[in-house]
């Protein structure tokens, strides 16, 4: 069975946030509700200070805390390794948001950062949050996967674009956006990434590009000490850009 995973090459990533925007458009997210965000962090002090960045989608962990704590099994892991939220079963207790070490979960009824409140500009009927002018076709929306226009008062997060990935031909090893046949099945952030810093494929297949990259370029995972075992790997190059993998002088007081 395929176990989907992502590799992000930090040496290629320019921090342009095209992935963030693509995700917003693909999944009709509200402004500020960025399933995929880019974190900027600084280290050192003038004149040797350095600014770095790191894209952060949901890590779709092998051993996810969010799945363990969800009282109703609304958050679950698919056979192909993707962590999803069943919007029809979520009771909005938000325990998963407390339990996620990566801070990648969102509650829909958040204060809007831009005015006017876009939910009032495009109001929805029923219990949906809003009715945006741009949205994926109805047949692709699936509340059981947490895909589509979100109901009110439930939790949401990155789905690895499961509405695309789950339709990939069986036996696909790598979802390469450069292959026109595979592009429709590839996550939006991977397709959009201008410097091609993102790779998506089967982590369990030794011949997959993601597996090879992790092996040959020292793929590392965020907060591995929590035991969550993310399925998003980062390639940090010769001088590891993920700070937890090296010793640095703290620039922060608390």
């Amino acid at each position, binding site marked *: 069975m395929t176990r989907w995973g992502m590799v992000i090459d930090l040496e290629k990533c320019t921090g342009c946030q095209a992935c963030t925007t693509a995700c917003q458009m693909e999944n009709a997210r509200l402004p500020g509700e960025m399933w995929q965000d880019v974190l900027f962090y600084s280290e050192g002090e003038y004149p040797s200070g350095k600014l770095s960045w790191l894209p952060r989608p949901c890590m779709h962990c092998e051993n996810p805390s969010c799945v363990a704590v*969800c009282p109703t099994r609304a958050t679950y892991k698919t056979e192909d390794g993707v962590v999803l939220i069943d919007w029809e079963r979520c009771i909005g207790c938000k*325990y998963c948001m407390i339990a996620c070490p990566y801070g990648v979960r969102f509650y829909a009824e958040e204060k*809007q950062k831009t005015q006017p409140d876009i939910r009032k500009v495009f109001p929805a009927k029923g219990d949906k949050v809003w009715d945006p002018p741009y949205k994926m076709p109805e047949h692709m929306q699936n509340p059981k996967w947490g895909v589509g226009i979100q109901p009110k008062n439930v939790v949401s997060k990155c789905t690895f674009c499961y509405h695309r990935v789950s339709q990939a031909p069986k036996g696909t090893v790598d979802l390469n956006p450069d292959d026109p046949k595979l592009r429709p099945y590839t996550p939006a952030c991977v397709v959009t990434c201008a410097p091609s810093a993102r790779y998506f494929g089967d982590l369990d297949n030794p011949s997959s590009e993601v597996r090879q990259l992790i092996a040959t370029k020292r793929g590392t995972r965020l907060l591995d000490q929590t035991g969550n075992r993310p399925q998003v790997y980062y390639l940090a190059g010769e001088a590891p850009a993920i700070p937890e993998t090296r010793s640095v002088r703290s620039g922060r007081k608390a």
Partner: protein
Amino acid sequence: MARLVFRRIEQPGREYWAGLGVLAVLAMVGLWAAHVMELEGHVVTGMTNRVVWGLPHVFAVFLIVAASGALNAASIASVFGQADYKPYARLSGLIAIALLAGGLAVLVLDLGRPDRLIVAMTRYNFASIFAWNIFLYVGFVAIVAAYLVAMMDRELGRSDRWSKPIGWLAFLWRLVLTTGTGSIFGWLVAREAYDAAVLAPLFIASSLALGTAASIPILAACGRALGEPLLADDMLSRWQRLLAIFVAATLYFTALHHLTNLYASAHHGIERFLLLEGGGITQLFWIGQVGIGGVLPLALLLLSAPTMARLNLAAIMVLVGGLAQFYVVIIGGQVYPQTLFPGMEITSSFHDGEIAPYRASFYELALGLGGAAFALLLIGIGAALLPFLPRHPAR
């Protein structure tokens, strides 16, 4: 010891009805606030995607933890064989059920989708301590109800044959229940403020203190409604010592929690925030939790002669300290940023690396107070309907 006779508030006076009226209004305002939050969402609260559990959770956890401890009098009588506490056993059962009902009402109404409660009651994930707590809370109500029946039924209540074993079960169950509530936080590795097994015994100690403290003003109010005090002088000093022991135990486990955290350098950041640099959170910890909720009532309880007024004052201080304690644990633990990159300054559109702002809104306060009022309403109605109160003060 004379045969125990129990009674109810048979002729409620004007004060009783006025009190009940105020509580009913507060409970209704809480219900309305929950409705508004349900319709509008986080927008009308102080909660954000960073601080997802707000003031309602503080009240809910406070009431649930106090509920477990409110059964102290009954446990001391049945489990530890102290017959002097038997006159208060029935009322302690009523208080325990009522406080739990109030806490659960707040918890459920604070859910994003309270309309899906049936999902929570039918689809369990046994890896989740939340799911376990559903069983623990429902089981607690059932066991305490059975305990009350065993004590109050004309036939069953004649001996300890039923009330003693059920009392033991209730005693053990409430220890597990409070462990479960503490473990909601203690088992989380994602937040530096939590992730500590000592939170479970800390919550148990808090429950003993808060439950005892909650019972004292209720006993005083019931005595007032009956026109005679329910705590005679000798019992006054025993309740006073009891509360002092539980407050001291809570202070001890609080110190243990923070000292354990300080031992691990990974937790120095959160400890510096909570104990030194957290602004309002730090003040709430030292002034509210430690001062008003711990040191001052302890001094009052240990250094002064027992009077109902002093005992009441100390109990109310402990309750205020308990609210401060859960605010520090729940809100303080969330406003402090998750550490993705230790030692780095982090910025993002998600406010990573920053202390998240949180100011509770009126709606949150109304829901929390509404839950407490609902609990007191249940106690008031229960005490008037059934004989929960002792006719003669103990001994």
